[in-house]
């Protein structure tokens, strides 16, 4: 894995306890999405689901680098980001199941998980559509002189849409506190990056917007955490946005039952070796944590997810009158 341009002025250290906590959240996201996948196959989940399995390191590392008052915007592949920001598992499940108690009262679905209470300002299903919106979210904090930052996650493919250009340009001109985090998972839907994009290092695009651009290993949670902490501090101080390119890989297909046949042989296997959860577990073992302790954490996370799902499935469907509510105030 290339680890280019990773310059951190004053790397803070994360304690093993903090990293254990990150692992806990990553496992919750992993099991959460295992269940999404299973329920989709069983026809219990409507529409589509886009799993972030393999990319948990990016969202957990980044969301743990900021506080509850900071804001997050993400894509339709956003279960992980929203859970990492603190949304409750049961209400996230309930949303995907279209239940009344869902995060969005069952009116958003898998692609639109939002929980304003924890600063998960939205999941967006139009590629690139939310990058300009992140500007406004960050602008409000700047306008009201609160030192908050806005994290904006998007995919590699999204760097080719016009909204990306407009958003990064204006964010830089207005010195908005936005951390643009490109989750480069090497594919936009079924197209490998190289077939759609003339450069390999997407962070280079930051140059033309006069903002820093860094490429980091997205499967190294601590590295993500450190980079985002660093640039968040910079943004809070008024120095403006950054483009962080986090190299990662989606272990499942693009959506639904995409079998991802377009992958070259061995690619998935190589990336599974670098699964962010495995990497973090190995690291924690090196730091002295016992394997049994880690196994216990897996069991705990899995149980939490299953309990949350059980609760969510018991909740009612939305009432018919909800159909016409929330169009206008």
């Amino acid at each position: 894995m290339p680890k280019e341009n990773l310059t951190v002025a004053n790397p803070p250290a994360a304690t093993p306890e903090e990293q254990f906590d990150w692992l806990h959240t990553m496992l919750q996201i992993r099991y959460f999405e295992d269940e999404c996948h299973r329920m989709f196959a069983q026809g219990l989940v409507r529409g589509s689901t886009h799993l972030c399995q393999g990319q948990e390191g990016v969202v957990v590392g980044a969301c743990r680098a900021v506080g509850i008052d900071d804001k997050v915007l993400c894509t339709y592949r956003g279960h992980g980001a929203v859970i990492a920001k603190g949304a409750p598992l049961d209400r996230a499940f309930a949303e995907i199941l279209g239940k009344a108690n869902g995060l969005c009262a069952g009116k958003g679905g898998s692609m639109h998980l939002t929980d304003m209470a924890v600063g998960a300002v939205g999941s967006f299903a139009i590629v690139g559509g939310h990058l300009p919106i992140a500007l406004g979210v960050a602008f409000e904090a700047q306008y009201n002189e609160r030192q908050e930052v806005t994290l904006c996650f998007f995919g590699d493919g999204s760097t080719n849409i016009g909204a990306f250009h407009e958003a990064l340009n204006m964010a830089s001109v207005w010195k908005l506190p936005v951390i643009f985090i490109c989750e480069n998972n090497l594919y936009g839907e079924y197209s490998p990056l190289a077939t759609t994009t003339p450069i390999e290092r997407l962070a280079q695009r930051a140059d033309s917007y006069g903002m820093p651009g860094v490429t980091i290993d997205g499967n190294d949670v601590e590295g993500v955490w450190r980079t985002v902490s660093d640039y968040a501090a910079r943004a809070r101080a008024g120095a403006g946005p950054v483009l962080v390119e986090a190299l990662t890989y989606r272990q499942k297909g693009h959506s639904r039952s995409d079998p991802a046949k377009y992958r070259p042989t061995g690619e998935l296997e190589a990336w599974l070796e670098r699964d962010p959860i495995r990497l973090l577990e190995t690291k924690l073992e090196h730091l002295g944590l016992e394997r049994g302790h880690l196994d216990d954490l897996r069991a705990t996370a899995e149980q939490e997810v299953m309990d949350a799902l059980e609760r969510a499935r018991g909740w009612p469907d939305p009432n018919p009158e909800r159909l016409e509510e929330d169009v206008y105030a």
Partner: protein
Amino acid sequence: MSTVTFREALIRAMGDALEEDERVFLFGEDVAAAGGSFKLTEGLLERFGPKRVRDTPISEQAIIGTAIGAAVMGLRPLAEIMFADFAAVCFDGIANEIPKYRYMTGGQVSMPLTIRMCNGAGGGFGAQHSQSVENWFLNVPGLKLVVPATPADAYGLLRSAIRDPDPVLFFEHKSLFNTKGELPDAPAPIPLGLAETVRHGEHVTVVATQMMRHHAMRAADELAVAGIEAEVIDPRTLVPLDYATIAASVDRTGRLVVVQECPNSGSWGATLVARLVGERLEHLDAPPALVGAPDTPIPYSGALEELWIPSVERIVEQVKRTVSY
């Protein structure tokens, strides 16, 4: 009471809104230092400073996105899209994000933003700077559409738009900027969704907005000479539409002519006619009529543009046909 231009009324409304509410900020291309490409924001930077009156890059998607994000977080963005035609380059924001955000999040957010844009033909600006694009948004529930015709309405409706918790697209007709009208010394906001019956008459109901309202009034004067009394109603907002006022008038006159500065296909006038026919056919003494533009782009040549825009003569002719049906 004083006489002001449409432009002055707009500037005053924005100034008063900025004065009234710290959460309001104004932004767009050339709105600050230059005072707007139609001088519609002149003097506001000087009064309110660069924090609240801001120039942006030529980035309509970024402008709309900024409005959305700021509105979700509780500010009251007042964005300008220079020409309404340019709404097409930020259509995603306007059609997919703004009107669905409250709904898709189950009511977690409000969307108190206002987008001002210039519409309207008649100035020889050609096909891409002259359209009245309100109809583009008619099929998108969640937006409010405001179409003022007088300085007083421009003032009062803009004040309400900015205060409204829902997203408002506010259309300013280019041919009206220098028109004059009365404005009270302490003008009040005008609620969205209230039509104004501009002229009372018993023979036919004529519904029109913006420039077409003025054409309709001239037509009504001519028709009066011929003994036909037209009731002219200006809905002032297309969403919400004051259907009750229009329906009550049609119940009385039994005849309806809608005048609109746009092709009739897929238009607000066609939607209004469909509803009236569906709900009160028994009140109608003649088929409702649409006086609109042909299904063509807006031509440049003055000779052709004049043909494109519904004229006073065409309104007079249609009303006569409708009345004598």
